[in-house]
């Protein structure tokens, strides 16, 4: 096949990527939606009033149409259930589009999209639908508008909490049965009133924020798909310091928090209590000033109005959870049959419901009796979040092709199609039909047969789409249509389109996607790719791993050489070299993987091993390795153990992709310290008495073949390297065995002992140890809060420690709490070896060279992000004996020390800092640092001047400045008010530098304060003495009185009456 110009070709419009696939699912245009809609061919009916013959979406539409024309009993309440992302919205939207096309003359059609997934946007949609615009409905419209205004109120957080607290008091709930429930009921009001509890509940990702995301779109982040406006047990796992603060609060809150801290059951019960829909609905209704009853009345009035106008109502709701708070009453409106009450119009409703909503919020009687059609889009038996829609590989290809097609043409073309042709699928614009590369593209990248014709899968191919989808990390994503679109199509095209022209597409395996991982090599072929691919090796690996068969076999198909299952044009399309690969004369068959867990692809068979060479004629006294193998297979002891173990260990070490398994070099060295760690069943050498120390390989024909190859390799006289095909055969045998044993070998290396599970991945354990080591040693501060900066700091400290250049820590100073110093001492001994171990653990080889290394920042950052997400909380590790492997025992012991003492250390150090701050503030009371320092100067001057001239030993320190003291106090106060564990740790760590300076000022001020106190005491004594001796005033008064009396007495003598009788 000759291909001329199909190179670095971009047939899609970059700006169309986000138009067609909107990750937030908020603003996709109807034309784009219809253009990308993949028909639901099989929908599972749980409930249906009659036999269903056509389970496709068209069958469902026809059913609705029949209801629409059935005036007698056209009531339908259709529930479409599925986990988020399974396509409920698409199906409902599509039904609405088609239903509206065919019934608009008869019905008012109201479509409520999930939009931002909150109540405000939902109410906004109802307003904007115009359904209440009629003059008779103006009051209702006003009420709705008022509700949306309420929902934009910034004080919603406190309003919702206040109303929830009111709800616990006013809403009549079932009588408490268990003692725990009674305790919760008794304490809940005080609990919800406590400021610290409210602060915790209002935290980002906390229950109040989740609730508000349902209510208002003013929040920064829209609600995650999995979230419901509900409380979770984890919301009440108050951490130590927070719990302590709450315990100092009102009695009810303190009591409940104590019980919550002690009992998981209590937390669950509180969750159940607060999640009662009467409580949440009451709180929401009161908050937005629109109760469910009022909404129900509005729709009741609407139905009567439509009845008067001889019209009916059809409501399509993408996700009823977006109406949480008023959903129960709205549901009653939808369930109300027009035949039950005169004057109501007929109503057909189709609502999307998630599994959890169906389970938790839909009343039993509704589920049982009133749902006319119950459809499911996912299998609820599955343990994983997986959509039924994409369990078939063809369905994945079909869906992806529709979106790829939509991205290849301008939106106007699709709008024309949508408006002019009622979005007839057969008339859908298809760029492939006019593409000059169609033949080459479709032949080499594959295509999907749609109603509009063949649509190419370029720049993907079938294998790439399936691999990326099946490799989705289920911890981060789920296997749903939304994940296929968002995490595969959108991510790959949006992130990497510009790289195509620059010959950088596809990027290295780990960079292709963020939510899916590259598959592992099932063989050693990546070495070949490294060797032959040169600078393009990493891109070639991506192509072979995702687009190809995950190997580098070079085989012929129809006279054309294929590499890894891919033809030359595929390589050329991306500007990649069509390397030689590993020659094979076999032809291959490439079946589609079967989802969800693809069967192992059929690989090109390795070359058949050469026929076993006849045993050489040797002296019976000389047992060569080859003979040893044969005898061993015959049941004898295995001789030449050293030879086998040494060579096989080298092969294991060199040909296992340790990096892919996250195994560091130091761990590898530690676990394979000497080849005695490899044990063959029946070997004649001594085996360690500790079974944790070695990995044993059982006696088998397969292992015998491997050892036979090893024996030949070990034989200096062997000509195995010269015999054509022998190298390939040997490689195939060894790689086949290695591939089979790889998981077990890797598991052995990754564990502290063969039978001891790894408490955590070693790199993670070391990283956590080193991060906390840095914190305890005072090497961190709040500036290192971001994982990126923290990572750089920790790694820099590790490198400095390794090179003996890390300055000693001063955190053992008396200025720190006893707890902190104790932890510091406990950790100190192993710090350097752990830091060195972490460096090695994160070192990765650059290409094949063992000498060129780079740090695996991605792993480190993942660990630190997780640590940050958990607010630096260290989980409890299982109790293990890991003393056999030094790096494990050190890191494990250190971790446990940290984990067990972290809380008391934080409490102790916080008290220590608070004490210092309190003392400082006490010295400054009644003044500022400036006035205090001025006072010191003034007083010293006063003391030295007449008349006082007081002798003292206080030394003035001009180097201590009030401005610096102000700064220190600000920093100290900031640490003391820290709430999260992260803030505390980083703050305390930074305080390592801060505290000695604080101490300097404390000593200075303390010394001066002491001087003042001494002077005060001495002066008070002197005054007391003087006062006790001196009563001048009194005496003077007496004297004065004496004067007066004497004078008066004398004056009276001068009067005429001055005669005694």
């Amino acid at each position: 096949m000759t291909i001329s110009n199909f190179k670095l070709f971009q047939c899609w419009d970059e700006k169309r990527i986000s138009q067609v696939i909107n990750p937030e699912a908020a603003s996709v245009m109807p034309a784009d939606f219809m253009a990308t809609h993949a028909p639901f061919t099989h929908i599972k009916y749980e409930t249906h009033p009659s036999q269903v013959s056509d389970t496709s979406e068209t069958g469902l539409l026809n059913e609705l149409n029949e209801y629409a024309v059935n005036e007698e009993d056209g009531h339908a309440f259709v529930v479409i259930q599925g986990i988020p992302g399974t396509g409920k919205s698409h199906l409902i939207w599509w039904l609405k589009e088609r239903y509206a096309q065919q019934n608009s003359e008869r019905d008012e059609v109201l479509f409520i999209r999930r939009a931002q997934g909150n109540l405000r946007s939902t109410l906004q949609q109802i307003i904007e639908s115009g359904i209440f615009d009629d003059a008779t409905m103006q009051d209702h419209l006003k009420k709705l508008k008022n509700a949306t205004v309420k929902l934009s109120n910034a004080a919603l957080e406190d309003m919702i909490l206040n109303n929830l607290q009111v709800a616990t008091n006013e809403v009549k709930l079932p009588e408490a049965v268990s003692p725990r429930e009674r305790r919760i009921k008794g304490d809940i009001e005080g609990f919800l009133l406590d400021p610290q509890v409210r602060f915790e509940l209002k935290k980002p990702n906390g229950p109040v924020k989740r609730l508000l995301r349902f209510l208002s779109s003013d929040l920064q982040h829209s609600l995650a798909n999995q979230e419901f406006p509900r409380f979770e047990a984890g919301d009440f796992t108050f951490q130590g310091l927070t719990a302590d603060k709450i315990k100092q609060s009102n009695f009810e809150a303190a009591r409940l928090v104590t019980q919550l801290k002690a009992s998981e059951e209590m937390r669950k019960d509180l969750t159940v209590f607060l999640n009662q829909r009467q409580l949440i609905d009451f709180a929401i209704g009161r908050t937005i000033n629109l109760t469910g009853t009022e909404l129900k009345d509005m729709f009741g009035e609407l139905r009567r109005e439509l009845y008067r106008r001889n019209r009916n109502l059809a409501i399509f709701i993408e996700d009823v959870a977006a109406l949480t708070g008023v959903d129960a009453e709205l549901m009653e409106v939808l369930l109300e049959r027009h035949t039950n009450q005169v004057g109501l119009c007929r109503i057909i409703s189709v609502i999307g419901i998630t599994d959890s909503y169906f389970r938790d919020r839909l009343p039993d009687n509704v589920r049982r009796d009133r749902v006319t059609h119950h459809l499911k889009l996912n299998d609820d038996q599955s343990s994983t979040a997986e959509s039924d829609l994409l369990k078939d590989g063809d369905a994945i290809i079909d869906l992806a092709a529709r979106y790829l097609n939509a991205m290849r043409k301008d939106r106007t073309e699709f709008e024309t199609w949508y408006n002019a042709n009622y979005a007839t699928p057969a008339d859908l614009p298809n760029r492939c039909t006019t593409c000059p590369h169609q033949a080459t593209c479709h032949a080499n990248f594959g295509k999907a047969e749609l109603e509009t014709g063949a649509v190419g899968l370029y720049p993907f191919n079938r294998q790439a789409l399936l691999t990326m989808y099946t490799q989705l990390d289920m911890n981060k994503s789920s296997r749903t249509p939304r994940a296929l679109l968002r995490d595969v199509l959108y991510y790959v095209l949006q992130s990497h389109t510009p790289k195509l022209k620059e010959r950088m597409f596809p990027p290295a395996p780990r960079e292709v996607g963020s939510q899916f991982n590259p598959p592992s090599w099932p063989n050693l072929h990546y070495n070949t790719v490294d060797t032959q691919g040169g600078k393009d090796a990493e891109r070639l690996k991506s192509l072979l791993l995702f687009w190809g068969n995950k190997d580098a076999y070079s085989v012929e198909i129809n006279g054309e050489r294929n590499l890894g299952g891919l033809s030359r044009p595929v390589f050329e399309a991306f500007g990649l070299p069509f390397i030689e690969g590993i020659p094979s004369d076999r032809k291959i068959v490439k079946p589609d993987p079967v989802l969800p867990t693809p069967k192992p692809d059929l690989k090109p068979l390795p070359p058949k091993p050469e026929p076993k060479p006849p045993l050489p004629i040797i002296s019976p006294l000389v047992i060569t390795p080859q003979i040893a193998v044969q005898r061993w297979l015959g049941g004898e002891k295995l001789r030449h153990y050293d030879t086998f173990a040494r060579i096989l260990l080298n092969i294991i070490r060199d040909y296992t992709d340790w990096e892919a398994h996250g195994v560091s070099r130091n761990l590898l060295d530690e676990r394979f310290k000497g080849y005695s760690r490899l044990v063959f069943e029946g070997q004649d050498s001594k085996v360690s008495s500790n079974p944790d120390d070695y990995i044993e390989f059982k006696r088998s024909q397969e292992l015998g073949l491997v050892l036979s190859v090893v024996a030949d390799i070990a034989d200096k006289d062997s000509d195995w390297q010269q015999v054509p095909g022998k190298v390939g055969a040997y490689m195939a045998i060894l790689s086949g065995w290695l591939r089979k044993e790889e998981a077990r070998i890797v598991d052995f290396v990754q564990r502290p002992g063969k039978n001891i599970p790894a408490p955590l991945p070693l790199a993670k354990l070391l990283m956590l140890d080193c991060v906390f080591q840095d914190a305890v040693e005072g090497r961190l501060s709040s500036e290192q809060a971001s994982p990126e900066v923290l990572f750089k700091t920790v790694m820099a400290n590790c490198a400095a420690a390794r090179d003996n250049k890390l300055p000693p820590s001063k955190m053992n100073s008396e200025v720190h709490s006893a707890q902190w110093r104790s932890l510091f001492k406990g950790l100190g001994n192993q710090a350097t070896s752990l830091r060195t171990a972490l460096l090695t653990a994160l070192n990765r080889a650059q290409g094949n060279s063992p000498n060129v290394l780079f740090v695996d920042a991605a792993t480190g950052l993942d660990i630190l992000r997780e640590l940050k997400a958990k607010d630096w909380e260290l989980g409890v590790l299982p109790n293990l004996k890991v003393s056999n492997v030094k790096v494990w025992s050190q890191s494990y012991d250190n971790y446990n020390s940290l984990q067990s003492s972290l809380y008391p250390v934080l409490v102790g150090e916080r008290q220590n800092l608070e004490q210092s701050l309190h003392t400082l503030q006490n010295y400054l009371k009644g003044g500022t640092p400036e006035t205090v320092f001025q006072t010191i100067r003034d007083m010293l001057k006063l003391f030295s001047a007449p008349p006082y001239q007081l002798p003292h030993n206080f030394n003035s320190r001009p180097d201590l400045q009030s401005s610096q003291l102000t700064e220190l106090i600000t920093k100290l106060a900031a640490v003391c008010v820290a709430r999260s564990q992260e803030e505390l740790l980083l703050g305390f760590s930074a305080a390592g530098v801060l505290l000695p300076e604080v101490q300097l000022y404390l000593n200075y001020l303390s010394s001066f304060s002491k001087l003042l106190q001494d002077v005060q005491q001495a002066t008070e004594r002197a005054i007391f003495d003087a006062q006790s001796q001196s009563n001048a005033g009194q005496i003077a008064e007496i004297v004065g009185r004496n004067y007066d009396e004497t004078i008066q007495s004398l004056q009276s003598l001068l009067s005429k009456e001055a005669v005694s009788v």
Partner: protein
Amino acid sequence: MTDTLGIVELAEKVKALLKVNADLKTAGQQVKQIENTKIELEKLNTSLTEISRSYRLIKTRLPTDTQITFESDLGQLIKDLENSRQAFWQQQQPDQTVNLRRCGERAKRLTDLLRGSWRNYVAKQLNPLVNLLNLVVNLPEVAAQRAELQNLKHQLTSFQNSLPQSNNQLQKFDTQLESFRTILQNLEFEPEVRLFLEKIQTGTATIADLNETVLNWCKQGQRAKTFFIKLG
């Protein structure tokens, strides 16, 4: 570190204490002077009280010129005292010992004046009676009351030496004086005898005064032996 005061507050307190202490030192020195003034004033007061009391008691028995002199001097003393008081209070001259001593001297002069006048007064009242007593003391008619008269004379004479300090004292003086006089007047003498005796008392009796009645009286009983004749 005190829990209640910061450094600025503590410094303010210390500053205030230092000032109080300094003030107290100054005040300590004044106390001595005030105390001295007090002592001096008390001394003065004591003497003035005696003077006042006495003057009130005997004012009417003093000659007018003595009263005028006394009250004039007393007015000057009061003026001096008022000046001293003013200096003590208003001019803050706690040491008034000099001024008060000067007042004390004036008071002493007043006392002397009163004492002298009193002594004169007592003598004036007592002397004629004593002279009479001396004439008749050895007469047989007096023999029965001689001891009482001598005692009264002795007690009354002692009143000369100190100013009366109370009404009782003065009344006692008056009463005794009256008793003394009454006893002497009640002695039963013929009028020519009484006259003769009085002349004897005044040193004016002559032979010519020895009339019949007088001579008979002289010759009665043992009386003649009690008279001696003396020439000129």
